[in-house]
């Protein structure tokens, strides 16, 4: 499968990249590992006239830690995130998510954490070859006026299947975006539009440079995911949770963040369900079971039938993923107390 034609640039500096993005805006594509973008280009789902490669921007590849946060450069390869002691200690859910992305020989060495978050939303009706798509009317995301995933939908419901984004949202991560005009910080919670065609609240001249994960003393985090095959396939449901113990009573949950992924246009932070666990004990099985049910009922409405498995199955599995993640997190919290 040939790639379409484009002009290639690989600037040596961040300023050089930003200047090109500013100049070419919607005509430009950022090339990190290329494991998402190049597939879409082969399918002619993306046809940027100019590719701006981050190849020489090694300054965006790092994992640093201060007393308040772990910071990860956007170009950091997935393998470095998996192997990082800092991530394992301070943000284990992210390490678990990255380990599950695709397969070693697809992304671990070429895929980047920035590209993982910013991979386009997916849909089995859309992410197909050009030949396949010519056999039927275009859908909203392909420039048409219909949706194959949800009948009568007036907009696109493509699914965010990023493993990293769901884990990072559970960890309360912030993104740092740079353009030639300056930089800004946005929390991952507030980074998504509700438009499956343009899922990110980001300008074409902006580059993701850094991801900051707050360090919360005593917090435990877990990521769980379901896919057809354990490797290669994208998640069809996933859950990330972070539980923070009460400093005055380590057996008690002070606050929780429950995020369900691959069930909507963005990872879903379930604020109410999360709130329901505040003040509960880690070993409160009934509260965990209820949270699983509530998560399922809340997330179910967001999903469209476009990730392969039957929609009712994915909806039912939300409960399982959330309960598993919460139970594993609670077990980790009690191990921490025992230590």
């Amino acid at each position: 499968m040939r790639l379409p034609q484009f002009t290639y640039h690989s600037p040596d500096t961040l300023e050089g990249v930003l200047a090109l993005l500013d100049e070419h805006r919607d005509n430009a594509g950022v090339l990190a590992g290329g494991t998402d973008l190049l597939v879409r280009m082969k399918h002619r789902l993306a046809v940027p006239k100019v590719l701006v490669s981050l190849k020489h921007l090694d300054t965006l590849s790092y994992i640093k830690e201060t007393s308040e946060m772990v910071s990860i450069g956007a170009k950091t390869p997935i393998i470095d995130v998996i192997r990082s002691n800092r991530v394992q200690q301070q943000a284990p859910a992210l390490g678990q998510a990255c380990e599950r992305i695709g397969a070693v020989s697809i992304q671990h060495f070429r895929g980047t954490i920035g590209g993982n978050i910013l991979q386009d939303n997916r849909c089995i009706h859309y992410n197909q070859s050009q030949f396949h798509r010519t056999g039927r009317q275009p859908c909203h995301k392909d420039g048409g006026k219909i949706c194959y995933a949800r009948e009568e939908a007036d907009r696109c419901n493509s699914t965010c299947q990023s493993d990293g984004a769901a884990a990072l949202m559970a960890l309360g991560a912030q993104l740092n975006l740079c353009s030639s005009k300056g930089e800004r910080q946005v929390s991952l919670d507030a980074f998504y539009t509700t438009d499956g065609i343009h899922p990110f609240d980001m300008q074409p001249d902006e580059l993701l440079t850094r991801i900051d994960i707050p360090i919360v003393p005593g917090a435990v985090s877990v990521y769980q995911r379901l896919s057809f095959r354990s490797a290669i396939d994208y998640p069809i449901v996933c859950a990330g949770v972070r539980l923070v113990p009460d400093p005055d009573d380590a057996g008690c949950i002070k606050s929780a963040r429950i995020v369900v992924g691959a069930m909507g246009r963005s990872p879903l932070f379930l604020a109410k369900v999360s709130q329901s666990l505040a003040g509960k004990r880690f070993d409160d099985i009934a509260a965990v079971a209820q949270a699983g049910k509530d998560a399922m009922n809340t997330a179910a409405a967001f999903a469209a039938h476009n990730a392969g498995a039957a929609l009712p199955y994915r909806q039912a599995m939300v409960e399982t993923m959330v309960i598993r993640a919460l139970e594993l997190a609670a077990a980790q919290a009690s191990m921490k107390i025992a230590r």
Partner: protein
Amino acid sequence: MQTIDITLTVNDQQQTLPVKSNDTLLEVIRDYLDLTGSKEGCGEGVCGSCTVLLDGHPVRACLTLALEADGCAVTTVEGLADEDTLSPLQQSFIDHGAVQCGFCTPGMLISAKALLDENPSPDRQKLRQALSGNICRCTGYAKIVDAVAHAARPESGCPDCHTKDSGGDHD
């Protein structure tokens, strides 16, 4: 159309060649250098038959721009044998009947080499994980896993081998 010179060290031989911006590393390896061992299966990163080592790490050559590989060392399946002598890993594939149609074999060998270079004695779980990005439609994987396990520990014989009794790799 933009043409740029790149330098690649392919199987220990350094070469400079002009590539188009939209050439993939796989196209350069197969069509310019005539190294047709690496295969194009799906062309979209799923199957793994185009896997090569880029600076020692396994990557999909179909999802790597040739321009991105400029200055890198590339190892393809043709680089595994020493002249006419197959590497122990290749020989083990033959001895274990790990090759049927052979289409996935170049990618399997490269993923296996990447693993063994980094971890000379992986357990079976690690081994299966390292090969999990490579799809085989013939063998049921059992004999491939056996072949790599044996290449990793030739002295231990084949205690876990499925080759004699066979069936699928159910562990």
